[in-house]
């Protein structure tokens, strides 16, 4: 995942909260909580970087934590909160 290009789903809205954010998917109507402000920053920045690793570095997540963040992102991908950006990668 770390070398793939991802983006926030177009159907998802992020609502800032003191602990991070609440993510709501208008399509499948799932509600998810992003429990760390850093994770929120990563999710918001995914579309601006060529891959997940670069995003994590840009946001300032230390390298030893990259695997844990990749795990959290996979969880978000399972409920379509974030999507692979494969199609747009060539553009």
């Amino acid at each position: 995942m770390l070398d793939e290009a991802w983006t926030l789903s177009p159907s998802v809205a992020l609502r800032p909260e003191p602990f991070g954010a609440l993510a709501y998917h208008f399509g499948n109507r799932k509600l998810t909580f992003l429990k760390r402000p850093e994770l929120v920053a990563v999710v918001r920045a995914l579309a601006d970087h060529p891959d997940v690793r670069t995003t994590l570095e840009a946001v300032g997540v230390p390298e030893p934590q990259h695997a844990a963040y990749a795990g959290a992102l996979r969880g978000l991908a399972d409920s379509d909160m974030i999507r692979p950006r494969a199609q747009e990668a060539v553009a």
Partner: protein
Amino acid sequence: MTLAPVRPAAPTAAPSTRERPLGGTLVEQFELGLDAPICLTWELTYACNLECAHCLSSSGRRDPRELTTEQAEAVIDELQRMQVFYVNVGGGEPTIRPDFWHLLQYAVDHQVGVKFSTNGVRLTPENARLLASPAFGGYVDVQISLDGATAEVNDHVRGPGSYDTALTALANLQDAGFTDAKISVVCTRENIGQLDEFKALADRFGATLRLTRLRPSGRGADVWDELHPLPHQQRELYDWLVAHGEDVLTGDSFFHLAAYGESLPGLNLCGAGRVVCLIDPVGDVYACPFAIHDEFLAGNLLADGGFQKVWQTSELFLGLRAPQTGGACASCQFYDTCRGGCMAAKFFTGLPLDGPDPECVQGYGEQALVALDAAGGRQVPASSQDHSKTAPTRNQPVMLTLGRRPDTLTLPSAPPVSACAESPLAGFVPPPPQQPLPQSIPHAEQ
């Protein structure tokens, strides 16, 4: 507004400056409150065609101060700005507001999804088709209230004919192609034994079953003693919920049952003023849908500068978001699972808010109620608002049960007098005199 002494004091710091620990569990974060509710309940009207015995908002008559269409639209606009993604709409019976379908459309068009609760009275085939149509984009949920799997049990508390109305509505939704309606059941002493029948009913209509807790709120206070599930029924309910898991919705209603052991799916915390709240038909904002009482009134969105301001700055809500100690429950080994139970259930049964829930599965609530009774009786708070109909209609439930005459009753001395006997002295036979009355004044002494 005055704060009750039993409630924790509000922190003095403004919400933006108060210290907030990061990390911890989600529940711990929720207890400190959110910038906007996750889900709020909005009662659109106090008017209702029914007069359910346990109505938690004491509904019946429309309040003349009810929000106008424009005011309701402004509330939706504000919810959109606050990113409240869906609301539970209820009443009263929300569908009898003439602008109900308009407001539904307005909410959906403004990214505020709606789940509305109804007794089904307006869910005609035509309206069912509207709900299933692309106009609502699958962004509307319908929840039909049914408190008995049979007409006999349902109509006893919801009134004559209400079972048929609900089932007709469910059939209309199914015929229109509306998928996944909800059947919402308040669990009572009379229907706990029908859980499998409710599930079968839901399956028959392609619906999802939703079970919630009977609260002693509103008119529910009058019938709670005779309707709340008995301890063995609570256990039966808990086992049934554990067995059915996520297939059955509960609105996180039964977190007080978590003290039996395994937590039920859901948040397992009291969300009042922290992640949920209630907007009533006149714009009053209460801590939760089960706490329509001055004691839990945070403010009014018309008078106090809008919903966001009330939610974020009311003294009451800031107090509810302050760390709680657990009070009398703090030493109980199950406190971490049940968190002391339901605030409204305690308040309306006269129990202190920092003590056990009246239906505490460890029996502490029952002990507390017995102790209160022994000490001179429970002081149950008087209701601070009541929109019940002043004159009963034909829809009023008649909660009488037929029984045998107690054997200890002494038999009447005579059969009843015929209904046609007009004489006021009918059936009265004076006792025969012991001695014949004197005919004249005796003059013997002379």
